[in-house]
């Protein structure tokens, strides 16, 4: 397309619908008008001055459009906020549940002064994010699951976003509590990440909600309860086991990456 605008002669011939305007020129004029706001403005003026009956008919059309238009026009921008893409409202209470558990453990830790009693915050750190992770992708915990599961947005990216939102709240809280009780960050962070990724990995097989419940109950039954009963911290949470926790997290991430389709797939049962 050239930069040349429509000549005044061509424009007035176009407005008059004159047969002098050759068909190819008329096409060129119309194509140019679609792209050029200045020439459209000139066209509007030309119509107004040289063809008042057209102008009047146009006014009637505008009037009818105004009558039919809804009282509340659509906003120019979406009202929906992008943070909903990270954490839907259903996630909130479940993240809160994890925070409450961590806070209770922290208070108990502050209250105990006898040496040798295992740190509760260390014991609950692996399971604190599981409440939120369970709600990230489970029919039981998300009222909109049925609607969401049938959309193209369903899949691993959505689950990861929500899991990240859970961790973004739970990890700083645990970090604060761990710092206040003088724990080494690696001691609670690695088990916490291993359990989160492990839940997602197991979730590709049995569903995230069930995976979180199973892992949370197993940890409570086999580690937290014996530790409280014997008043001795399990060696699993000692520095010697850190490489194993890291390895578990890596394996879980690999499983999630390999089985990513499971989050978008059709359910074989309801």
């Amino acid at each position, binding site marked *: 397309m050239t930069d040349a605008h429509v000549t005044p002669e061509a424009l007035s011939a176009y407005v008059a619908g004159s047969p002098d305007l050759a068909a190819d020129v008329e096409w060129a004029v119309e194509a140019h008008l679609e792209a050029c706001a200045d020439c459209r403005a000139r066209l509007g003026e030309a119509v107004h001055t040289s063809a008042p009956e057209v102008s009047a008919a146009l006014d009637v059309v505008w009037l009818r459009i105004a009558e039919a238009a809804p009282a509340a026009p659509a906003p120019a921008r979406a*009202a929906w906020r992008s943070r909903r893409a990270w954490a839907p409202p259903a996630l909130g209470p479940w993240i809160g549940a994890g925070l409450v558990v961590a806070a209770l453990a922290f208070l108990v830790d502050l209250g105990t002064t006898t040496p040798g009693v295992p740190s509760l915050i260390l014991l609950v750190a692996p399971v604190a994010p599981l409440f939120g992770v369970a709600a990230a992708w489970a029919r039981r915990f998300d009222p909109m699951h049925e609607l969401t599961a049938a959309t193209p947005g369903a899949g691993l990216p959505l689950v990861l976003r929500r899991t990240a939102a859970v961790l973004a709240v739970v990890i700083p809280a645990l970090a604060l509590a761990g710092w206040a009780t003088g724990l080494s960050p690696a001691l609670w962070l690695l088990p916490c990440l291993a359990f989160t990724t492990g839940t997602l990995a197991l979730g590709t097989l049995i569903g995230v909600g069930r995976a979180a419940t199973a892992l949370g109950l197993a940890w409570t039954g086999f580690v937290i309860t014996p530790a409280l009963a014997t008043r001795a911290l399990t060696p699993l949470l000692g520095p010697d086991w850190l490489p194993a926790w890291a390895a578990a997290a890596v394996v879980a991430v690999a499983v999630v990456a390999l089985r990513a389709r499971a989050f978008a797939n059709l359910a074989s049962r309801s």
Partner: protein
Amino acid sequence: MARAVDPAELAPTQHAWEVDAGAVRVRAGRRMAVDGLDLRLGTGVHGLLGPNGAGKTTLIRALATVLRPAGGTLELLGVDVGGRPDLRALRRRIGYLPQDFGFYKRFTVREFVEHMAWLKEVDRRRVPGAVQEALERVGLADRAGDTMRTLSGGMLRRAGIAQALVNDPDLLLLDEPTVGLDPAQRLDFRKLLRDIGDQSCVVVSTHLIEDVAAACNRVVLMHTGKAVFQGAPQDLVDAGADSDLGDTPIERGYSALLAQHREGARR
């Protein structure tokens, strides 16, 4: 440039039927709720009729790519869902209203539909316009700023229909869409169905037979997981005799066909 035509608008259809099911079986819990159903649906409004427990909801959920068929073949918009389909591309073209749909109570109606538009990967620049159009089509534009919790049952239903429409689907699946709508709204809704059915394949499950008579081009009658009748609403009317149960001709046809099928199954 002057004008851009989306290549997708000009792409020829590669499939004969929007929904093509061959002896499809779908499990609901332990029960085989859809058991050997053959179905071919093209463009138009298709009414899915049948008594409670006939497998209508399970069939709709399988068509919405929520449930995986346990057997048989199921092709949606030319995509075989039994293989390893590109579900994302397929789901962009489907609209789905579940029988009971959950929602976030604090969302406004507009936020709810926008949230669904985002999940359906509607072009971000088109979202405000598409949402407004969907809300106007169901007559909820004046309530767009209200929160979902303040809506009545009929309005919730219409919000659900709006989210199903927001991505301009080629395959629209509505499970009991007229529940809770008052008579005037149901008339509007039938007109909306006919409009959409001009270009898309619409599947409406209902047990309100008069909706089918008024809005559908085709009727599929389901019983115990199978399609026992397919035809035009008039064929359903013709199947009934004055001696059959029902107050209107189409109701008599419905009960006549169901009775025939029950007898056939007993023999």
